[in-house]
C-alpha cells in the first residue's frame, strides 16, 4: 500500500522529468519557422503556385504565341488570352494574358496543353492582396518584357 504510493509518486516525477527533457531538447534544436518576408522557403521542383508565362531565352519576351490552346483546355475557363503580331514578326504575341486565380484549381492542364511550353507553375507563394482584382485578374504579362511598346500594351488591356 505505502510502497505503491511512493512508487506512484516516483514514477510520476520520472515521467514529468522525461517530458521536460523533450521540451528542453526542442528548445535548443533548430527552429523550423522561416522569417517571411525576410526569408523565403526553397520550394521543391514540382511545387504548384499560380501559373506564369515563360520568357524566351534570347529576347526575354513571352514564348507564348497566343494560340489560345490553354484557354480552351482550362476546365475552369480562367485564362483570357488575346494577341496580335508585333511589327515585323512572324508569330503573334500575347497582348492580354489574364488569369482568374480565384477559379483556378491548379490542375495543370494548361501547362500540359501548351504546344511551346510557354506556361509553368510559378514558385511564388507570397500572394497577399487587398483587392479581389489582385487575384481574379492576375496580369501574367506584367512580369515579362513586352515586344510592344508600353502604350500599345496599355491600350489593349484597357479595351
Amino acid at each position: 500500500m505505502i510502497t505503491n504510493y511512493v512508487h506512484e509518486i516516483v514514477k510520476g516525477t520520472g515521467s514529468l522529468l522525461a517530458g521536460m527533457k523533450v521540451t528542453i531538447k526542442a528548445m535548443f534544436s533548430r527552429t523550423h519557422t522561416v522569417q517571411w518576408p525576410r526569408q523565403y522557403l526553397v520550394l521543391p521542383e514540382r511545387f504548384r503556385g499560380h501559373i506564369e508565362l515563360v520568357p524566351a531565352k534570347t529576347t526575354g519576351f513571352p514564348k507564348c504565341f497566343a494560340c489560345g490552346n490553354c484557354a480552351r483546355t482550362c476546365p475552369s475557363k480562367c485564362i483570357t488570352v488575346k494577341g496580335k503580331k508585333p511589327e515585323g514578326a512572324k508569330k503573334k504575341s500575347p497582348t492580354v494574358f489574364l488569369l482568374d486565380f480565384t477559379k483556378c484549381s491548379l490542375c495543370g492542364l494548361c501547362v500540359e496543353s501548351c504546344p511551346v511550353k510557354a506556361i509553368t507553375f510559378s514558385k511564388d507563394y507570397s500572394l497577399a492582396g487587398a483587392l479581389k482584382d489582385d487575384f481574379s485578374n492576375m496580369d501574367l504579362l506584367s512580369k515579362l518584357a513586352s515586344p510592344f511598346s508600353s502604350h500599345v500594351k496599355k491600350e489593349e488591356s484597357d479595351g
Partner: protein
Amino acid sequence: MKDINLLHIIISLLGIMGIVSLNAVLVVWLERKTAGRMQFRHGPMEVGFHGILQTLADGIKLVSKQLVAPNHADTALFILAPVVSLVPIFVAMMPIPFSSTMLAHETDTGLLLVIALGLLNTLGILLAGWGSDNKYGLLGGTRAVGQILAYKIPLLLTVLTIVIMAGSFSLREIALAQHGIWYAFIQPIAFLVYIVCIVLETNRSPFDMAEAESELVAGFHTEYSGMAFSMFFLAEYSYMFVASALATVMFLGGWQGPFLPAPIWFVLKVYFFLFLMIWFRWTFPRVRIDQMLMLGWKVLLPISLINFLITAVVLAL
C-alpha cells in the same frame, strides 16, 4: 515607529514599481521566446532586438483600449478586482532582500508578510469572476478558490519547515542561515513540494484551471479588456516573481554566491525559478480540477507533514 524613513519608502516604492514592470516585460518576452523555441518557432522577432520590446508594444496597445464592463456586471466589483489583485504585490515586494542591505523594508516577519499578501491574489480572481457576470468567469473564480484550499496547507508546512530550521521569519536571516549549504540540498523534499506549490499559487499551467482557455474561454478575465486586463497580467507575472524570490531566499541561499555582486546572484536565481515555471507551462498539459485536489490533499499534504515532523524531531534531538 521612529525608524520609518519617508524618503527611503518612497524610493523603495519607485524601485518596486520599476522591478514589477521591468520584470513583466522580461518574463513575458522570455516566456514567448521559450514557448516558441520549444515548438520549433522563433517567438517574437520584430520589435526590438529579437522582439525584446514586443511586450512594451503590447502594453501600449492594451492601455489604449477601452475597458468595457458587461451589462449586468457588478461594476464596483468589476473594477475593484484587478486592483485587489495587483496592489498587494507592492507591499509583498518590500521585505524581499536583493542583498543583505538592499531591501525596502526590514521586518522580522517578512516571510509571513509575503505569503499572507500572496493569498489576496485569489481574492482578486474570485471578485473578478463574480463581478463580471459571466458563467466562465464565475467558474474560473470558483476554481481558483478550490485551488487555494489544495495548496495552502502544504505550502505553509514547507515554509514552516524552513522557518524552524533557520529559526526566523525574517527573509534576511533565512538567507544568511544558508551560508554554508543551501536548504535545497538539506531539504530536497520540501524544495520539490514548494516548487509545486508556487506553480499552484501563481495559477500557472499545468494548474491554470482558473483561466483554462480550452474550457473556460479565459476564465476569470474573460470579460476584461484594456488596462484592467493588463493589470491582471502584470499581477500574474509579479506574483511569479515574488514566489520565485521566496524560493530563492528559502532554498538557494538568497543573494549569496561567489564572484558576482549579490543583487545579480539574486536575480539570476529568481529567473532560474521563473524559467522553471515557464518550462513547466510549455511541457505539461493542464490537469483536471479533481486531479489537482488529489495532488494537493493526497500527495503534497502528507509528504510535507511528514517532512515537517521529521525535521522537527531531528532539530529537537
